[in-house]
């Protein structure tokens, strides 16, 4: 039986030294037994679409095989715009793609769900990978990435990313992004769990905030047309099945709009707010997997839809902040994880899937710390770090200190209770090294894409991947799509979607993409009646 929070706090003593953990299970055994991807019934087999027959998390499968939100009737009289490159999603990947495409001379429109920059990118803390140290190489970066992903990643994508990395950092600096520098002006680097060199560049623990505000400012000061509060609800295609634009719902005017484009770049980010397996999440409000649904319906092939990352250190207490992320940087800096007996139980710098599974094992076997009836967790021993490195926390982790304040906890004397939090979608839309999906004219970059991280991602490779492939897709889309517009554009693909769903006897009640988490009650919000007209009409005629 786990002990209570108060008891555990009373038992807890800050110590400078603790014995390393003795682990009895191999990584593979640990994952098989404790990783949420392997929970019984977590995955199901897809019945329709390009990945028919493949395994997929059942909650995501429900969305991929949901009915569309709109049909032809919604589009009657809708306003139409025309552009060369349409970017959907205004996080890091979308902004990078838009900036590069615009620089290459394309007319670019960027539609994003809410405010520009409201994204997972802005929340990133730990940093971004690039091999720039003398004793490090792109080859080692490549090797580490493959290994951490259990040799499941697309080698060509990984190689592209690892070799672009130094140039990516330079491009970011040219956009005006700062990095932490040492006294000689060199980029400082720290080590990610599961890697062989110090390879993470960072700006305090605000790397994502710094990146996002710079990219947003860059976009706002360019000729890119930004449509905010404009979630995409469907893609459009031409007579030959090539992607040719999207339908967006304008939340300011409550109308649908058609955006015709020669190429579309989806950069809608992750799925955390689907709360897979009922886990809390570190993700922002808009992380509802919309891009996967849009691309899948148009026929884009997906990879690894049953593989997700649960970050080891989500906050477990207090409850109103549960799920908030505590950066891996703090473990890189040497912080231990302790069970209720005050013992280390895992090498804290192993890969995230390993560390998370180890935490779940402690909690399952009764060595977790219990708060009230529901939340359990283990200690993140920041006081121990403070003893070993006085002042380091305050200096390097201002955001974490803020979080401590919100919890009413002084990190230098009291440990935080942590539990794994749903963090990242490892798989996603299959792409080539230009970010092109299997559907002509449709690019997918950033967290929505798959194949880059295999079945487990290391810290800092996501921020790298979004800029690397964002830039590649932006350049390619601008270059290869100069031909004049399409003849006939439609949402014809929805007819076959509905036919296939009916034939597979799938329930048609659920509509996708999800757009907003359930708690926000978008569907009931009378402010948006204009967007629900069609649904209401259907309900009243049946």
């Amino acid at each position, binding site marked *: 039986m786990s002990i209570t929070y108060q008891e555990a706090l009373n038992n807890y003593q800050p110590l400078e030294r603790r014995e390393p953990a003795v682990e009895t299970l191999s990584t593979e055994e640990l994952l098989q037994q404790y990783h949420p991807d392997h929970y019984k019934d977590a995955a199901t087999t897809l019945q329709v679409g390009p990945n028919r027959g493949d395994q997929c998390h059942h909650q995501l499968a429900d969305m991929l095989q949901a009915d569309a939100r709109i049909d032809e009737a919604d589009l009657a009289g809708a306003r139409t715009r025309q552009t060369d490159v349409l970017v959907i999603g205004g996080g890091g990947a979308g902004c990078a793609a838009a900036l590069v495409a615009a620089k290459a001379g394309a007319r670019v429109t960027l539609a994003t769900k809410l405010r520009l*920059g409201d994204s997972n990118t802005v929340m990133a803390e730990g940093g971004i990978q690039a091999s720039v140290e*003398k004793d490090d190489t792109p080859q080692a970066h490549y090797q580490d990435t493959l290994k951490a992903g259990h040799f499941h990643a697309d080698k060509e994508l990984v190689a592209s990313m690892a070799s672009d990395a130094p140039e990516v950092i330079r491009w970011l600096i040219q956009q005006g992004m*700062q990095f932490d520098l040492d006294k000689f002006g060199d980029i400082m680097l720290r080590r990610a769990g599961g890697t062989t060199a110090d390879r993470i560049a960072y700006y305090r623990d605000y790397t994502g905030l710094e990146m996002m505000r710079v990219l947003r400012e860059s976009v706002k000061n360019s000729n890119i047309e930004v449509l905010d509060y404009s979630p995409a609800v469907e893609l459009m295609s031409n007579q030959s099945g090539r992607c040719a634009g999207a339908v967006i719902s304008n939340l300011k005017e409550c109308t649908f709009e058609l955006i015709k484009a020669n190429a579309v770049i989806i950069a809608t980010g992750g799925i955390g707010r689907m709360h897979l397996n009922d886990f809390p999440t570190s993700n*922002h409000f808009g992380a509802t997997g919309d891009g996967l649904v849009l691309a899948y319906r148009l026929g884009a092939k997906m990879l690894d839809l049953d593989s997700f990352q649960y970050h080891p250190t989500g906050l477990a207490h207090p409850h109103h902040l549960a799920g908030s992320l505590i950066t891996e940087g703090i473990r890189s800096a040497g912080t231990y994880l302790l069970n209720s007996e005050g013992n280390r139980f895992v090498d804290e710098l192993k890969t995230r899937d390993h560390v998370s599974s180890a935490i779940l094992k402690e909690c399952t076997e009764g060595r977790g710390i219990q708060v009230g009836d*529901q*939340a359990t967790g283990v200690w993140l021993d920041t006081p121990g770090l403070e003893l070993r490195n006085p002042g380091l926390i305050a200096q390097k982790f201002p955001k974490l200190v803020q979080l401590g304040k919100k919890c009413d906890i002084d990190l230098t004397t009291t440990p935080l209770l942590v539990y794994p939090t749903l963090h990242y979608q490892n798989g996603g839309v299959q792409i080539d090294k230009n970010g092109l999906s299997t559907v002509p004219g449709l690019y997918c970059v950033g967290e929505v894409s798959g194949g880059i991280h295999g079945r487990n991602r290391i810290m800092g490779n996501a921020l790298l991947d979004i800029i690397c492939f964002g830039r590649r897709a932006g350049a390619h889309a601008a270059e290869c799509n100069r031909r004049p517009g399409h003849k006939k554009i439609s949402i014809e693909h929805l007819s076959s979607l509905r036919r296939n769903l009916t034939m597979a006897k799938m329930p048609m009640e659920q509509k996708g993409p999800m757009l907003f*988490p359930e708690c926000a009650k978008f569907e*009931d919000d009378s402010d948006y009646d204009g967007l629900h007209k069609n649904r209401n009409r259907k309900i009243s005629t049946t």
Partner: protein
Amino acid sequence: MPKRVGLEYINNPQFTNIDAMENLIEQLVTVTINGKEIKAPPSLSTIQALWYAGYPRVQSVGCLEGVCGSCRILVRRAESTEVTMALGCQTLLEEGMEVNFLVFPTPTHHTYNLEEIPNSWEVQTEFHRIFPEAVNCRSCNGCNKSCPKDIQVKEGVALASKGKFQEAGELFVECVMCNFCMTACPEYISPNHVGLFSRRVTAYFHTRPSNLINRLEVMRKGELKIEIDQD
């Protein structure tokens, strides 16, 4: 009042039992949000409170962690006439509090392109061309008072006006671009954009890490190519 959603949807779906939650939580407080009277636990933020009470809330919601600057609210606390600005996701409920959400911040009228600044000698001149109002700062303190991150905004504007861009930028490390200071400024200075400009020119002109430059140089010569089948 509309039907209440369980706390399970607010952040942590592990909490499936509302009653258990309510035992765990303190007394409810009564607040008014966007004109609606709501009773909710004081450990919730203003956004969570709306959801808890079953009201929709989509606009102005973002990271829920205080870094995206979307959730701008006006707050009046009980027995006070003063209206303050805050981030909704970071503001916990207090008895008698009145809250109104603001949406769609107006963009700044300042535009610039770093690549059009010929070199670092010209930054100060360009700054005064791009932000001509900055020198008019009347130290009214409106910006500092409105900043939810307690940034010394006014001091930042003064430093930037004097050409001390690196120092100015340092003050804006935690800026989330919520635009409150911009709204508060009677001189239309857009202080947050002054701060961000200061930060950006510092990186653009002065971040020259030799470890990165060396690596780029070696790679430009075609060395350090990745061999794909080596593993």
